[in-house]
C-alpha cells in the first residue's frame, strides 16, 4: 500500500492506494495518527487508488476516527472504488463518516 | 757274492723286466709320415693316434712331420718311416724307379685336383683355356692337366707353380692349379668371391684318378702284414671318427698345426676336413674299402708313361697289397 499525505488549506489529505488489509492497516493507522499528533484534525482520506479494504482496514479507520473525534476533528473519505464502496455500504460506515465522490468535493465542503 | 736272498731277488727282478719287455713287445712300434705339413688332409691319422685306435690294434705309432723339405717317399726309402702317404702317381714313379714300396690302402679314391680361373679373364669353359697362361705344379701333379690339354689339343703357356697362389691372385697368370680341399679355399681366404671364379674339376673332365694312399716298403709288409693292415684299419677308423666328430677332429688337427707353427687357421682346416669327406671312401655299411682298382692304377700309370715320367709300368700285383686278403689269413 502506498500512502501519501499533504496539507491543503485546513485539510490534511491522505492518499491511500493498493490494499488496506491486515498487513497494511497498522501502517495506515500509524500514518494518520502521526498527522493528528502533528496537529491535523481535518483528515480527508482519498481512496482513489485503493482497490481492496478488509475488516482490519475498517478497524484502523475506526481507530483514527475515534481519535479525531476526541480531538474535535473530522474524518472523511473520497473517491471510493466499487469494492471499497461496497464494504463501506455494508458496514454502514457511511453513517459514521462522510463519503464524497471525489477529492474536490471533499475539499469543497468544510 | 751276496746272500741267496739277494740273488733270488735279483733273479725275480730280471724275470719281471723280461716280462715287461715281453709286454712291450706286444705293442709294435711303427712310424708314420704324412706327405706334407700337418693339416686336415691327414686328420684321420692324428685322430686315430689321439683316440688310441692304433693302440687298440697293438700299435705304438710315432707320427713324424712331413713337409716340403723331404718327400714322404724318401722317408720310406731311408727307413726313417715305416708308413707314409703319397699320391698314387708319385708312388708309381717311385716303384718304377726301383723303390720297392707297396700300396697297403688307397685312402683317397677320387681326385681333388682343379684348375681355377678368374671369370674376369674371359674363361668360361675349358676350351677358353687355349692360349692362356696356366700355372701347374711340377712332376706328378702336372700329369693330369697335361693329359687334359693333350686330349683336347689345347695350346697353353705353362708357368711353374710351387707353394703359393699369389701369382694368380695378383693376376700374373690366368689359371692356377689347386687342390679343391686346399688352395681353392686359400683363394677365397684372400678375399676372392666364389662367383668370381671358374673352377674346372679334373674329376669331371674324365680325370678322376686316386690320390693319397698308405704305403710301406714291401719288406715291411712281408715281415708283418698284420701290423700293416692294422695300421690301415686304425687309420680309417680315425677318419670315420673324424667325420663323425668334426669339431673334436679339428681340435686335434689344430694342435698339430700349432705345434708346427704353421700359417694356417681353423676355418681353412675345417674346409679341408669337410672336403676330405667327399673323397675318402668310407662305406656306409662300415668296413673298409681300401682296394686300389686295377683300372685306376693302369690309367694313372698310362698317363705317367705318356708324359715320359716312367718308362715301364710296374706290375699291379707287385704294387698292391690287399689288406682284406691279408686279414682273412
Amino acid at each position, binding site marked *: 500500500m502506498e500512502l501519501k499525505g499533504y496539507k491543503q488549506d485546513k485539510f490534511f489529505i491522505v492518499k491511500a492506494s493498493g490494499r488496506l488489509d491486515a498487513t497494511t492497516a497498522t501502517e495506515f493507522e500509524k500514518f494518520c495518527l502521526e498527522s493528528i499528533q502533528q496537529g491535523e484534525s481535518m483528515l480527508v482520506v482519498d481512496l482513489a487508488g485503493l482497490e481492496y479494504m478488509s475488516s482490519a482496514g475498517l*478497524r484502523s479507520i475506526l481507530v483514527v476516527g475515534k481519535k479525531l473525534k476526541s480531538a474535535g476533528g473530522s474524518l472523511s473519505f473520497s473517491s471510493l472504488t466499487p469494492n471499497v464502496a461496497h464494504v463501506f455500504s455494508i458496514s454502514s460506515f457511511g453513517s459514521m463518516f462522510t463519503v464524497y465522490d471525489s477529492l474536490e468535493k471533499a475539499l469543497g465542503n468544510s | 757274492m751276496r746272500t741267496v736272498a739277494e740273488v733270488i731277488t735279483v733273479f725275480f727282478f730280471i724275470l719281471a723286466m723280461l716280462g715287461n719287455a715281453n709286454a712291450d713287445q706286444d705293442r709294435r712300434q711303427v712310424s708314420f709320415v704324412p706327405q706334407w705339413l700337418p693339416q686336415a688332409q691327414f686328420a684321420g691319422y692324428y685322430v686315430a693316434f689321439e683316440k688310441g685306435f692304433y693302440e687298440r690294434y697293438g700299435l705304438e705309432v710315432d707320427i713324424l712331420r712331413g713337409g716340403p723339405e723331404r718327400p714322404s717317399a724318401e722317408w720310406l726309402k731311408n727307413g726313417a718311416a715305416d708308413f707314409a702317404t703319397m699320391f698314387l702317381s708319385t708312388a708309381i714313379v717311385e716303384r718304377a724307379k726301383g723303390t720297392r714300396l707297396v700300396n697297403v690302402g688307397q685312402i683317397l679314391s677320387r681326385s681333388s685336383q682343379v684348375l681355377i680361373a678368374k671369370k674376369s679373364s674371359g674363361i668360361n669353359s675349358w676350351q677358353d683355356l687355349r692360349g692362356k697362361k696356366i700355372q701347374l705344379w711340377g712332376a706328378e701333379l702336372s700329369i693330369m692337366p697335361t693329359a687334359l690339354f693333350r686330349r683336347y689339343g689345347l695350346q697353353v703357356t705353362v*708357368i711353374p707353380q710351387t707353394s*703359393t697362389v699369389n701369382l694368380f*691372385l695378383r693376376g700374373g697368370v690366368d689359371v692356377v692349379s689347386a687342390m679343391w680341399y686346399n688352395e681353392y679355399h686359400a683363394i677365397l*681366404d684372400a678375399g676372392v668371391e666364389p662367383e668370381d671364379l671358374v673352377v674346372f674339376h679334373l674329376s669331371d673332365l674324365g680325370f678322376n684318378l686316386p690320390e693319397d694312399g698308405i704305403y710301406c716298403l714291401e719288406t715291411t709288409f712281408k715281415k708283418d702284414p698284420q701290423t700293416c693292415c692294422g695300421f690301415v684299419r686304425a687309420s680309417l677308423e680315425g677318419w670315420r671318427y673324424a667325420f663323425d666328430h668334426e669339431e673334436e677332429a679339428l681340435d686335434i688337427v689344430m694342435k698339430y698345426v700349432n705345434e708346427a707353427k704353421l*700359417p694356417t*687357421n681353423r676355418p681353412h682346416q675345417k674346409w679341408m676336413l669337410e672336403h676330405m669327406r667327399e673323397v675318402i671312401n668310407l662305406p656306409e655299411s662300415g668296413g673298409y674299402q681300401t682296394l686300389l682298382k686295377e683300372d685306376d692304377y693302369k690309367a694313372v700309370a698310362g698317363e705317367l708313361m705318356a708324359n715320359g715320367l716312367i718308362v715301364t709300368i710296374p706290375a699291379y700285383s707287385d704294387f698292391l697289397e690287399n689288406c682284406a686278403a691279408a686279414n682273412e689269413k
Partner: protein
Amino acid sequence: MKNRGLAFKLILFTLSGTMAVLLAAFAYFYHSSKDSMMQYAEENARNLTHSTVYQIEKVLVGVGKVPLNYASLLSGRNFEAEDIVRIVERMVSANPEIYGAAIAFEPDAFAAGAHYFAPYCCRKHDGHLTNVMLGDASYHYFTMDWYQIPRELNQAAWTEPYYDEGGGNMIMASFSVPFYKGKDGEKRFQGVVTSNIALNGLQEIVSAIRLYRSGYAFLISRNGVFITHPDSRLVMTNSIFSIAEEKKSSLLRRIGKDMINGGEGLVALQSGLLLRDKCRLYYAPLSSIGWSLGVVIPEHELLEGVNRLGRMVILIGLAGVFLLTIMVMLIARTITRPLKELSATTVEIARGNLDTRLPDILRGDEIGTLARSFEEMRLALKDYIKHLTETTAAKERIESELKIARNIQMSFLPKAFPPLPGKNRMEISARLEPAREIGGDLYDYSLIDDDHLFFAVGDVSDKGIPAALFMAVTKTLLKGIAETGMGPSVILNRCNLELCGENDSMMFVTVFCGVLDLRTGRLKYSNAGHEHPIIVRRDGQPEFLPVPEGFLLGVEEASSYQTMEIELKPGDMLIVYTDGVTEAVNAAGELYSHENLMATVRSCSSLSAEGIATEILASVKLFSSGIPQADDITVLSLSFTGAKV
C-alpha cells in the same frame, strides 16, 4: 583420502613433469655428447691411421728405393760377378732396414752356363754380413714368389709376408724389382733385384698404437693376412677373411675386401667381430704396398667418459627429483593438513556443534583466507540458527495461540442439528472453514422455544485469540439475549452496548441475525454491517435480501438497529455468509465476488440446505485453490420446509 589424493596428484604431476623434462634434456645431452665423442674419436682414429700409414710407407718406400735404384742401374750396363756381389753386400750394409738382399738372374742370363746366379747377402743376428749364392737343385728360386711375381707382372712387387727361414720368428717381406736388358729394340727380362725387410719394426709401430684400453691397430697384407695383431696367435695364420668366415660375418668380409682394394673408411661393428664389444673400425691403405692398416676403437670405452658423466647426471637428477619429492610432499602437507583440520571441524559443525572453534590458521595465503571465511560462516550460521530458533519459537507460539483460538472458536459452534420438535419444518446447515489466521467468524442457531429458531452469522474484525474471545462473547450475548425472546434489533442493540465498553482497539463484529417462526415462516431479521444474505424463493431467482442499515457492533454506543420481516414460503432458502466467501482470492488475484456467489447459488438452488452450504464452500475452495485462505469462510443455509407437525 581426498587430501592424500591432492598431495599424491601434486607429487605425481610435478614429478612426472620434472622427470620428463630431465629425461628429455638428458637424452639430448647424452646423444649429443655421444655423437661428439664418436666424431672426435673417429677424427682421432683417422689422424692416427693416416700418420701411421705415412710413417710405415715412409720406411717401406724408402727401403724400396734401394732395389729400384739398383735395378735401373743393372738395366743400364753389365757388371762382373764380383761387382754384383759387392752391390748386394752394399745394399744390406748401407741400409739398416734391409735384412737381406739378392740379385737373381734368369737361367743362363748372367753368364752362359750359370743356370742359377743369385748372389745373396744377409745380416746375421750378430750383425755380421754373410754372402751366399742362392740357387741349386733344392732351391729353385725361379718359382719363388719374390722372383716369379715381378717376372710375370713386369713390375716391382712386394711379396706376402713370410717367416724368415733362418729359424727366427721374424716376419719378413721382400720387395723385388725386375730389370731388363734392351736387345735388338726389345726388352728382355734379366732378373730381379730383391731386398728382404724385417717387419718387426713395423710391427712395433703398429702394436704401439693403443687406444683407450682395448683399442688396437692391425696391419693386413695384400691377401688380408694379419701382419700385426694384439693376439699374436692370429699373426700370419689368420686373415681378416678367415676371421669373417669363423664369425660368419659377410660384413667383415666386405670390409676386408675393401681394405685390400685400397679402400678407406669407417665402419661400426657389432660385438664379437674384432673386439669383444661393439667397436668402430677405421682403415686406410698403404697404397705403395697394397697393405692396409685398421684401427679398432672400442665404442663403450670411448663413451666411458660420456657414460660416466651421464650416470652422474642421472644420479644428480634422481637426487634432485628425490629432494623435489620431499619438498613437494612438505608443501602439499602444508595445504592438506589445514584442509584436513578444516574438513574435520566442518563435519563437527555439520553435526550441529556450532560452537566448535575452527583451527587457528594464521596465514596470509588462500588457506588462511579459507579458514577465516569458514570461521565467519560458522558464526553467521550460529547467529542465523539462533535467530531461526527464536523465530521458530515465536512462530510456534503464534501457532499455538492460533490453535487455542481455533479451539475456542470451534468449541462454540453448534454442529448438530438442533433437537427440534419442529424438526421437519426447517432445515439448517452451516459450514465454517477457518483460515490459517483466524478471523473470528461465528455462527449460531438454536431453538428459543418450540416454534422459534434463532440464528446468527457474525464476522469479528480482529485476529487471533482476542478475536476468538470477542467472538465467544458476541455469540454468548446474542444467544443469551435471543433466549429472552427479544426481537433481532433488540438483540443487536443490547449486544452492541455490551461490546462497546472498554474497546480502545476498536474491535468490532458484523452480525446478521434472525428469528424464524416455524409455524408461519415469518422471518424477523436485523443486520449490523454484515454481508447481505441471499434469499432463494422456491419459485424464483436468488436475490439479495434487503437488510436494514446498521453499524458494526462494538464501536458506537449510539448505533441503532432495526428489524425487518419477510414471509418464508415452504421451499424458500436463506443463505447467510461472511465476506470470507466473496473476498476469497484466486491465483490471478481476482475476488470470488458476489456475482460468483449468486451464480453458484443459482446453479444449486434446488439442493438442500446442507447441499447448498457444501456446494458454496466447495466452489469457493475450488476458486481459490493454491492460494492460502486469508479469512474464515462461513456459509449458513436455512430452508423453510413448513411441514406441519
